[in-house]
């Protein structure tokens, strides 16, 4: 049963033009926010409070509810056209965030909890996130920086980027590049249909790293001392390697496999039309 808190400053707010309030989090573990149009910016702090600032028309009502340990925020238009609301929130750093939007851009800074963002039209930028970080935009670029844990980023029509993150990475799009930089992961899957794939990060012993594109180039920049079995396939493009222990010349054939070090990890890279390059980090 939905509980609407009225006491303590937590209420259904009907304010003209702007909502600006601070509510106590009181042990809340997750914040759910739905926004039809506009932007959502989330900052974090060390206080156990949630600051909610929202710019909207006077005909729009920002509802703040609590269901158990979940704070829910949603705007409703009393009548007239659908609502545009620009939110700026400041939340406890470890609070889990679940944000859904239609025509919404989302920016999250310095999160330390699980993050899940889904929007139809609009870019997503996330800095931080721990445990599970999921970001999906149909028509928007998705960027995640400094996440730890299971990281899943996807778009349909734009590129996806993950940097300085660790754990398990899944990054996909249809039209656009997949760029992974500063990655320390035991499992990576990165794929696009039309666009390039770039990976710069560690290769952990026993890990699995799969990169694929139909039309685009794959560039893997690896640190020294990798232990991996490498399988590369490019149907119509060339393969080149500038990495100690890797072949310097590749015959044109179905799939080229070679071993680096003990061969413990598995690296697969496939492209239909586009080249594949492996190079050593710092090697220029």
């Amino acid at each position: 049963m939905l509980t609407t808190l009225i006491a303590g400053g937590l209420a259904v707010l009907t304010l003209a033009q702007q909502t600006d309030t601070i509510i106590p989090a009181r042990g809340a573990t997750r914040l759910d926010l739905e926004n039809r149009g506009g932007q959502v910016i989330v900052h974090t702090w060390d206080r156990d409070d949630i600051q909610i600032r929202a710019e909207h028309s006077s005909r729009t009502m920002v509802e703040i509810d609590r269901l158990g340990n979940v704070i829910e925020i949603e705007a409703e238009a009393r009548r007239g056209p659908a609502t545009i609301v620009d939110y700026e929130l400041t939340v406890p750093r470890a609070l889990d965030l679940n944000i859904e939007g239609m025509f919404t851009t989302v920016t999250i800074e310095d999160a330390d909890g699980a993050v899940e963002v889904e929007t139809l039209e609009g870019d997503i930028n996330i800095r931080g996130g721990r445990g599970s970080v999921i970001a999906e935009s149909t028509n928007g670029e998705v960027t995640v920086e400094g996440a730890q844990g299971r990281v899943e980023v996807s778009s349909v029509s734009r590129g996806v980027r993950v940097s300085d993150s660790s754990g398990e990475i899944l990054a996909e799009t249809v039209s656009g590049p997949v760029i992974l930089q500063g990655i320390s992961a035991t499992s990576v899957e990165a794929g696009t249909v039309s666009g390039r794939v770039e990976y710069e990060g560690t290769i952990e012993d026993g890990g699995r790293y799969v990169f694929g594109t139909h039309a685009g180039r794959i560039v893997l920049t690896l640190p020294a001392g990798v232990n991996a079995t490498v399988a590369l396939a490019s149907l119509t493009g060339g393969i080149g390697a500038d990495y100690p222990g890797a072949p310097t010349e590749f015959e044109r054939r179905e799939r080229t496999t070679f071993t680096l070090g003990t061969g413990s990890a598995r690296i697969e890279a496939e492209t239909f039309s586009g080249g594949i390059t492996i190079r050593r980090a710092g090697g220029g």
Partner: protein
Amino acid sequence: MNGHIDEPTLNEYLEGALDARQVERVDEHVAGCEQCRDRLGRQTGLLAELADLPREAEPARDLWARISRQIGSGAPTGADVIPISRGPARLRHRITLSLGQLLAAGVVLALLSGAGVWATLSRAPERGLAVGVPTAPETAVSVAALNDYEQAAFDLREVLTRGKELLDPATVQVLEENLETIEAAIAETREALARDPASEVLVQRLATNLRRRLEVLRHAASVVYAES
């Protein structure tokens, strides 16, 4: 008017909530301020997109007939509940099917169908999902998997076709353009596979592209569901 138009005033202006004097002041400012004119243009476009989104759509009779067959004799009466544990966040809720939610029911069924085929396709490379390679002993399984896939893709595409009027035209365009990109990749891979039917790499690429198409179709169907 000092400075630029603030956001609330701009919203009030767009909604017609300002009095005549305020409207006149905004008009005067916008006429001489390129920055506010651009902001107004963007907001106007966004509001037009939002306002144009239809709120209801009639499901096609043939879709309902197919849904009815799939549901069987226990047709929903408004209280059937299907728990969804996978898929986009919007579908991670318990979904109640009713006679008034036929389109949504079609989406759920198609999504469930697609999920099963997805699991099969995920194993495809090891099981020899090679169209035009009829010699492997697991071919029967592979062909069945492909048929299931094609049916699931057809169902999901049907949901998008029937439900696209619920969506913003720009969103539909993005989805269809990217589906075309995937279709082109599939066609190119199939052609190459026809020339080199033993290519394991091509089989892998075909399976990957088929999976990606199914994923985008499932995503599109979930968006239709969210708007239905």
